[in-house]
């Protein structure tokens, strides 16, 4: 019985992890899409965003997301952005915000990940990488 319970709990926690949204769409104008594990859906206020989600905005469109750790990102028109790596587990110090901006415009506002572990935040672009550094930043983002 105990063995059975342990296995059941393991699967439960594993599935909760995989299916847990890491952020949510809070603002949308025009046409925008969120693609997760190959499924493309029109973005609406309330659309969940997962690790690995691809965000796209069309012409004259925009979209804003707030993540679990209070990081905010927002995009102008014609943007392609990927949430490549998102881990927010402050209890055991596992923190990561890895993203890619293939094209378009991005406004990034740091949350707890940028405050606790600035070097864990990266935005990749076709020609380089933007990284967050320095203790000044820790002060800046304090809520």
């Amino acid at each position, binding site marked *: 019985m105990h063995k059975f319970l342990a296995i059941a709990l393991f699967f439960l926690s594993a599935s909760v992890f995989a299916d847990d*949204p890491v952020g*949510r*769409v*809070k*603002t*949308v*104008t025009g046409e925008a899409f969120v693609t997760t594990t190959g499924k493309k859906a029109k973005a609406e*206020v*309330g659309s969940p965003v997962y690790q690995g989600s691809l965000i796209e905005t069309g012409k004259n469109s*925009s*979209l*804003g*997301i*707030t993540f*679990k750790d*209070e990081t*905010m990102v*927002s*995009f*102008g*028109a*014609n*943007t392609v952005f990927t949430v490549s790596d998102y881990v927010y587990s*402050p*209890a055991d110090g596992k923190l990561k915000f890895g993203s890619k*901006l*293939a*094209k*378009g*415009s*991005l*406004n*990034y*506002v*740091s*949350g707890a990940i*940028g*405050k606790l572990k*600035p070097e864990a935040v990266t*935005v990749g*672009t*076709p*020609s*380089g*990488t*933007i*990284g*967050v*550094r*320095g203790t*000044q*930043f820790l*002060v*800046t*983002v304090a*809520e």
Partner: protein
Amino acid sequence: MNNALPTLKGMPAGLFRGAFVVAASLVLAGCAPKYYVDRVGCPAPCAPDSYVVLIPSPDGSVGKVVVTGDKGEQALGKAGQAATTGGQAFQVDEKRIKDDFGAAMAALPRVPVRHVLYFSDGVKLDPASDAEISRIVAEARDRPAVDVTIIGHTDTLQSLEFNDRLGLKRANRVAELLRERGLKADSITVESRGKRNPAIPTQDNKFEPKNRRVEISVR
């Protein structure tokens, strides 16, 4: 503060908290990449289309970002300071920032709010914190697609296990009160850190009212 960007100060404070903006475009209007890289800072239309700008925080302090690319590395530490995404120094004026980032800035979600509620004993809320519950519910009402995280904490009296459970009880109690008073949210997440993340670090087995708390993030 950077005097080159006077009107940015007049924009809503919520836009600026350790923030930066990036424009990355693969479509370069009439400028081949090599051309603009050789002429950094040249006037439009030959200015690069891909750059990063650091934006000031509401209190005037500014964070720091490092841009590392195929052309070098730039550390940005001043408001209004910019670099190409390839890692070269770059100048950008306020008008161009508005043209390139106005839409992204306008799409920024509302800044999340945090609350800390205190417990006198067990799962009994302090009266002042009890009153705050209603304010949190009212505030959440104006937000789109609300996410709430509730994290329970304890002081260091008793064992780790005891406090993990007590922290969870406190967080669940707050979730229950928020729901009773009409909180509508897309998600409510309840967690406990027990005595692992004290607000005031103390020795073990120490009574500390400021550590008997629940932190609430409303996003």
